[in-house]
């Protein structure tokens, strides 16, 4: 049964589209396993360009998932990012939903086959 029919669609969990995007998932995963990092560290670990990373961080920041702090260290501007509680919870929920989706796809659920 295709997932986009009415029955299948209604059974799909609400996936957080903001985290679902691979680049943002990578950022969220990295920030989840560390405490906080400088912009440059995140950029190096995720292999993104600074413009690309900046855009994704802004989106995650706007959603309230990460805290972005800009400060001057030795007169040089530095950006530090950390995943806040809301972001951590959202990331954990997303992973749970995806796990559930893969282990129990909507098309194969007992209720869907009716």
């Amino acid at each position: 049964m295709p997932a986009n029919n009415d029955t299948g669609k209604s059974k799909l969990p609400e996936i957080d589209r903001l985290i679902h995007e691979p680049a943002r998932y990578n950022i969220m995963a990295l920030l989840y396993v560390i405490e906080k990092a400088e912009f440059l560290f995140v950029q190096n670990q995720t292999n993104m360009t600074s413009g690309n990373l900046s855009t994704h961080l802004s989106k995650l920041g706007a959603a309230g998932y990460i805290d972005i702090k800009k400060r001057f260290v030795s007169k040089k501007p530095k950006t530090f990012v950390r995943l806040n509680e809301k972001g951590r919870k959202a990331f954990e929920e997303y992973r749970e939903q995806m796990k559930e989706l893969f282990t129990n796809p909507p098309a194969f659920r007992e209720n869907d086959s009716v």
Partner: protein
Amino acid sequence: MNTPYSLKELERRAYRSTFEDGIYDILFGLLFLIFAAIPILEAAGLSRFIGYSLLIIPPALPLLGKRLITIPRMGAVEFGPRRKSRRRLILIITGIVIFLMLPIMISTVSNGLSGSMGWMVIALLALPVFIIAVYAMDFPRLWIYAALLLAGPVESEFLLRYIGSPLNTSISFGLPGVVVLIVGLSLLFSFIQKYPKVAPEANHAG
């Protein structure tokens, strides 16, 4: 983008990337070379304590190297509570071991425990710190360095019969020291190439 599925693996990969700079390898290479230089300095008529006082120089290397080379190129990072508590553990245990073992080390040195026996005692004292450091730092190359450190006095004893003192000790610590230093310097060279220094504004979300 190649993201490992397991978050634990991702954390370990991010953590171990902070050792890509080879600074700790250079630190251990220098420590070995100082161990190698002490008997030569002593043979040249310098006090044994002058040689030992050189040992305080390499530990300053990570502090300066991380600040001047690694962080400007790779960016600063703070790991989670598990890593922090491991770091605290290594500091506490190293402090305790040094505090307890320093008197033994000083008396070994001042009583002039001859030849490689003195080195054996020193290497055995340093070994627990190495093992704890390997565990706490999660830095696998350190196992090899710990083995080299322990092998040093054994090699020294073996070489004594063929080349005599102090060259036996200098060679048995100097050769691994040079190898470790070369490993560290080549890692540092690759690190500098891999992570070029960025303009301040590039380390900054617009």
